[in-house]
């Protein structure tokens, strides 16, 4: 047996301290089953340890900077009212908002209009009131055996959103889970966990936002689990706009039953280091999934997406389309695996990753992987890395646009076909603005949206 003594794994010591604190603070007040699951999760974390760049999955993403910071476990936000300006960017969104500050649920802003029939609550509150609702779905185990961050998230399971769309219910209003992190001076770590259950024949749109208030350093370690029942249709957007000093590590696990349709769209704009793992399992026959992603990194940002789509049953379809823009000395990683299990005949899978490098010092590693174990399937993948087209730049300038405006216009044009697929109009416009307002001439391009 390997020796896993304290001295060998000093970077884990901090989390050991956290775990003791957390058990003391909350342990006695939580259900026994939860405590047991958290302890099992912590044991898995100890066994796995933090990943290093010697591991294939983490080859291009060195998490040493995350481990160097003495984070504290984020305490609950003591106020009961939220400052108006925190929510201002979302006022125009006709959505049902659940707001979390430093990982703790603080309140909801219901959408106007008639009752909508979905359950959307903070997990911690539900644990106090109706634990039996969440018990079957929380941190049940071995799925995180190989991922230290997911295990940590389970060990520190604090709060997050629990969303259930009952059978046959079509929820028109998007549900917005807004995770705000404050810049309080001391760096904090949060471990949000979300559970989204879309029962048979239900439909819903869920938007998860991660937003930093201020420029502070903090660490978000999030896990979201999505289950789409037979025939359910789920659109899930994750919009990462963390502070530029923050670390964001997240995983999204999707399981689909027969003929379910799931769209997962990962939009990564913020953080110093951002890593998102997305795993979709198409368990039922004829299930479909679309994984879309857009990343835009500047300065020395690092943004990493690892996706795995696993076709288990026949007649499944998957479409994956990731686009990235990398400027300055930014680095991007896209690693996309498609697995087709022996039984998954007639699978139709397509994957595309396109990258635009705006500077000679920007870098991207793109890595498509196909593991096809069935013989009657259609699978394709393609990856490109390119620069702005000089001919197009010149053409724009001969029409009077200055070089900077032309560059921005063409850069935005690169992303727009993908961003224009965002079905929820307010989100589509907001994402466009969040990108464009960072550009010197972006203001004038806003009307392109």
């Amino acid at each position, binding site marked *: 047996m390997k020796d896993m003594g304290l001295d060998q794994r000093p970077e884990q010591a901090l989390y050991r301290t956290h775990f003791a604190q957390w058990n003391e603070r909350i342990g006695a007040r939580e259900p026994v089953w939860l405590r047991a699951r958290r302890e099992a999760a912590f044991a898995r974390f100890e066994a796995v340890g933090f990943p290093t760049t010697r591991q294939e999955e983490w080859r291009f993403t060195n998490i040493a900077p995350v481990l160097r910071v003495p984070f504290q476990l984020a305490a609950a936000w003591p106020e009961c009212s939220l400052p108006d300006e925190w929510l201002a960017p979302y006022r125009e969104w006709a959505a049902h908002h659940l707001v979390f500050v430093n990982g703790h649920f603080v309140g909801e802003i219901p959408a106007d209009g008639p009752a909508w029939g979905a359950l959307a609550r903070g997990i911690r509150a539900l644990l106090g009131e109706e634990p039996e609702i969440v018990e079957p779905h929380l941190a049940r185990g071995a799925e995180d055996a190989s991922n230290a961050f997911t295990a940590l998230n389970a060990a520190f399971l604090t709060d997050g959103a629990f969303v259930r769309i009952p059978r046959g219910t079509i929820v028109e209003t998007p549900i917005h889970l807004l995770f705000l992190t404050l810049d309080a001076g001391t760096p904090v770590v949060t471990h949000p966990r979300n559970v989204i259950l879309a029962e048979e024949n239900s439909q819903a749109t869920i938007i998860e936002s991660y937003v930093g208030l201020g420029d502070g350093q903090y660490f978000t370690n999030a896990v979201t689990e999505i289950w789409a029942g037979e025939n359910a249709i789920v659109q899930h957007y994750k919009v990462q706009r963390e502070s530029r000093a923050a670390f964001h590590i997240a995983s999204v696990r999707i399981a689909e039953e027969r003929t379910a349709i799931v769209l997962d769209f990962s939009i990564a704009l913020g953080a110093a280091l951002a890593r998102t793992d997305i795993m979709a399992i198409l368990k039922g026959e004829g299930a479909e999934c679309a994984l879309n992603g857009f990343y835009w990194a500047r300065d020395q940002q690092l943004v990493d997406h690892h996706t795995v789509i696993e076709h288990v049953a026949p007649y499944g379809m998957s479409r994956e389309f990731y686009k990235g823009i990398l400027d300055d000395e930014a680095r991007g990683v896209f690693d996309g695996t498609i697995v087709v299990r022996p039984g998954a005949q007639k699978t139709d899978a397509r994957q595309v990753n396109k990258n635009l490098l705006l500077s000679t010092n920007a870098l991207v590693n793109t890595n498509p992987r196909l593991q096809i174990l069935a013989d009657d399937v259609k699978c394709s993948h393609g990856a490109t890395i390119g620069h702005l*087209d000089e*001919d*197009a730049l*010149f*053409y*724009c*300038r*001969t*029409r*009077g*646009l*200055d*070089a900077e*405006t*032309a560059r921005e*216009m*063409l850069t*935005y*044009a*690169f*992303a*727009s*076909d993908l961003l224009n697929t965002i079905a929820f109009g307010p989100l589509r416009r907001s994402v466009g603005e969040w990108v464009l307002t960072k550009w010197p001439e972006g203001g*004038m*391009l806003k*009307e*392109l949206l």
Partner: protein
Amino acid sequence: MSRRSLLEIRNLRVRVNGQEILKGITLAVYPGEVHSIMGPNGSGKSTLAQVLAGREVYEIVEGEVLYDGEDLLLMPPEERARRGIFLAFQYPVEIPGVSNLHFLKAAVNTIRKQRGLPELDAMEFLALAREKAKLVELDENLLQRAVNDGFSGGEKKRNEIFQMTVLEPRLAILDETDSGLDIDALRVVAQGINALRHPDRAIVLITHYQRLLNYVAPDVVHVLYDGRIVKSGGKELALELEEKGYGWIAEEIIGSPRS
């Protein structure tokens, strides 16, 4: 008092990738004039057009170009456009993701701003665009599509003329805008050019064929051959070229027939 030329090119020599393409061009275009430049493939016509529009890959070895009395070669391409130079590309560039209408509106407003004119709002611009689209019989659907993206060859050329009529340049350089057009499109393109004719404006038509010149009568026809203007004349020169090709010119300069 003699009139001032709008464009004056003096002994322009241009190199690309170490190879001299333009070998001393001298040419003066006065307001109100239409010049036609003809010449065999590879003689340097597009190079000249691109240099005038400000393409940076070309190295100016010698010579100068004055536009309205000012040194054109010092200006970046957008500055030239804002001062009224328009190049209709031989191969218009596709820009996926940018709508034709938005693109042109951005262009119009940048140019207007530069000239101290108020910017056009969406409604005003749309009205202008529709009017001009009608003039050049450009399908309105093309306005909504991405710039030249998936346009047919003829549609791209028509779109160039459409942009020209909206931007109302003082000096329009049309690089083989008549190539690849059917007879209707040719007439429409000619219509667009003629609508632009004005005593204050000048037009340079680069073409291989007499047929456009049937619609747009040039004041001067130049023959560009191997990087030099080897002959200039009236519109009858174009007819002669059409009839006899370029061989006789080669003979004239080199003094012996080409094998």
